């Protein structure tokens, strides 16, 4: 009788702290998550940042208005065109430079190609995170075509530095139009493979459906933007709300979903790829003739004041707040990066999920760590 009393009647669990990262394949970079577990259930998540902080904002204060966009390609390296575009736009806003229509069309084409390339990589990599290997190869097959196109026109494959204040750095390559058309044709032909491999796959649906639900109110309060917020039903597409560089003339849809779970985020990104292809379809035959760059002074000096521009990158709203004191260099720059705000919602929605779900949630957030840390 004595023995039976000392044995506890119920099994209790103990808190357990697990470090995910900084070198973890599914964090896609050097993000460290301090996860507190109760058994298999997550009770607390604390993202630890700073492993890849390069103080880009401070660095930019020393660089001239032409130069500072060159470092921003290294922030969200999958949307480097959009980052450069935002930099170019903030200078254009300050100096009131009119961008030629040809440059605008080229910019939109490049941005939409980047969006497709970025979502392709997300699709492949998140398949990898969830245990499917072959999507990665199929995604890279198409993405490779886009980087080839970029290589010919922009000169590099990842960190473009192609958009400069006043337009774009160089005119499009003579083969650009034909290559983009060929890519879009193949992309539409092969898109069904993506759907068959992952979208309709019961294994994937089981991993994603109902996991990591972010409500509309929460998405707004955490400042989420991009596909993460749109999957929760927040209409926040900068291309629709604050059209720039001629997006207002184009016909495309803002993809919204209401469920806010991981599957909704997946669906939004898949549909966005199709919309981007649709935008390219409209523009590729109608690139206006003219200059690819406006005439600008060699030395740019922004008038005293503060300026804000925003663009829609593949991950959400990317904003630049620039304070100028009238000199050649910006007095202060602040980047509002989409990844940082999106990540701040992660600890909130991961609570109560299982450890395996955390990988799914992170995969569907599409985090790019250099964008978060800067």
């Amino acid at each position: 009788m004595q023995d039976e009393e000392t044995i506890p009647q119920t099994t209790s669990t103990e808190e357990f702290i697990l470090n995910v990262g900084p070198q973890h394949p599914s964090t896609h970079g050097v993000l460290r998550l301090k996860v507190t577990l109760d058994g298999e259930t997550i009770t607390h998540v604390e993202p630890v940042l700073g492993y890849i902080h390069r103080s880009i904002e401070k660095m930019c204060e020393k660089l001239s208005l032409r130069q500072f966009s060159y470092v921003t390609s290294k922030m969200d390296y999958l949307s480097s065109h959009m980052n450069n575009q935002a930099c170019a736009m903030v200078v254009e806003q300050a100096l009131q430079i009119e961008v030629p229509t040809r440059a605008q069309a080229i910019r939109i084409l490049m941005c939409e190609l980047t969006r497709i390339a970025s979502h392709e990589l997300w699709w492949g990599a998140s398949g990898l995170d969830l245990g499917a290997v072959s999507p990665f190869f199929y995604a890279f097959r198409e993405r490779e075509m886009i980087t080839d196109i970029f290589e010919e026109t922009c000169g590099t494959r990842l960190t473009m530095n192609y958009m400069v204040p006043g337009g774009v750095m160089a005119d499009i390559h003579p083969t650009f139009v034909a290559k983009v058309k060929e890519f879009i044709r193949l992309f539409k032909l092969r898109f069904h493979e993506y759907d068959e491999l992952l979208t309709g796959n019961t294994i994937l649906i089981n991993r994603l459906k109902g996991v990591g639900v972010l409500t509309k109110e929460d998405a707004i309060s955490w400042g989420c933007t991009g596909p993460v917020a749109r999957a929760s039903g927040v209409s926040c597409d900068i291309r629709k709300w604050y059209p720039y560089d001629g997006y207002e003339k184009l016909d495309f849809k803002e993809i919204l979903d209401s469920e806010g779970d991981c599957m909704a985020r997946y669906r939004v990104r898949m549909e966005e790829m199709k919309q981007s292809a649709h935008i390219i379809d409209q523009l590729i035959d109608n690139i206006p003739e003219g200059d690819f760059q406006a005439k600008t002074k060699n030395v740019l000096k922004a008038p005293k004041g503060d300026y804000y521009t925003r663009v829609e990158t593949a991950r959400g709203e990317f904003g630049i707040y620039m304070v100028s004191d009238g000199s050649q260099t910006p007095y202060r720059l602040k980047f509002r990066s989409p990844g940082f705000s999106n990540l701040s919602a992660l600890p909130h929605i991961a609570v109560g999920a299982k450890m395996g779900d955390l990988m799914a949630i992170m995969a569907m957030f599409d985090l790019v760590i250099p964008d978060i840390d800067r």
Partner: protein
Amino acid sequence: MQPLTNRSKPVQTREMTFLEKLYLPAIWTGMVITLKHFFMRKATVRYPEVKREFSATFRGKHVLKRDDQGAERCTACGLCAVACPAEAITMVAAERKPGEEKLYKEEKYAAVYDINMLRCIFCGFCEEACPKEAIFLTPETIPSMYERSDFIYHKDRLVESMDKRIDISKRQEKKLAVNN
């Protein structure tokens, strides 16, 4: 999860049928697609045997051009060093002496011209800034080396040699619109 508000909408999940729970059809469809790719054209390049060339517009290793007579074009004006966002270029200017007309195109020339390839971000701004069409980027990559000092390219590795001239005619025209 505790939402900030109580207005969250639960996600409708349907209970899966037995067949779906087996995951066999899902695995089968995936396998069929991968199998099909056995018979398709390969997307990959068989690398060590076949090399994929960079396009002529690729921004890689720099070259300092000579003109057709073999004289160096660079006049050490320093505009490329000013334009460089990474501060990778250093140079020392020197006066041309009589009798060196064959070597240097103009009166001033760069006695020392170094590019630190560890700093360079290959943005191509030096190419755009140069008024004498002296510096160009080529579709060549920088090989890896053992010493950091090996990455500082001096003139011996930057200036093109006359018997192996580098064709830059296919590079894109960049300075159409910049005026002073």
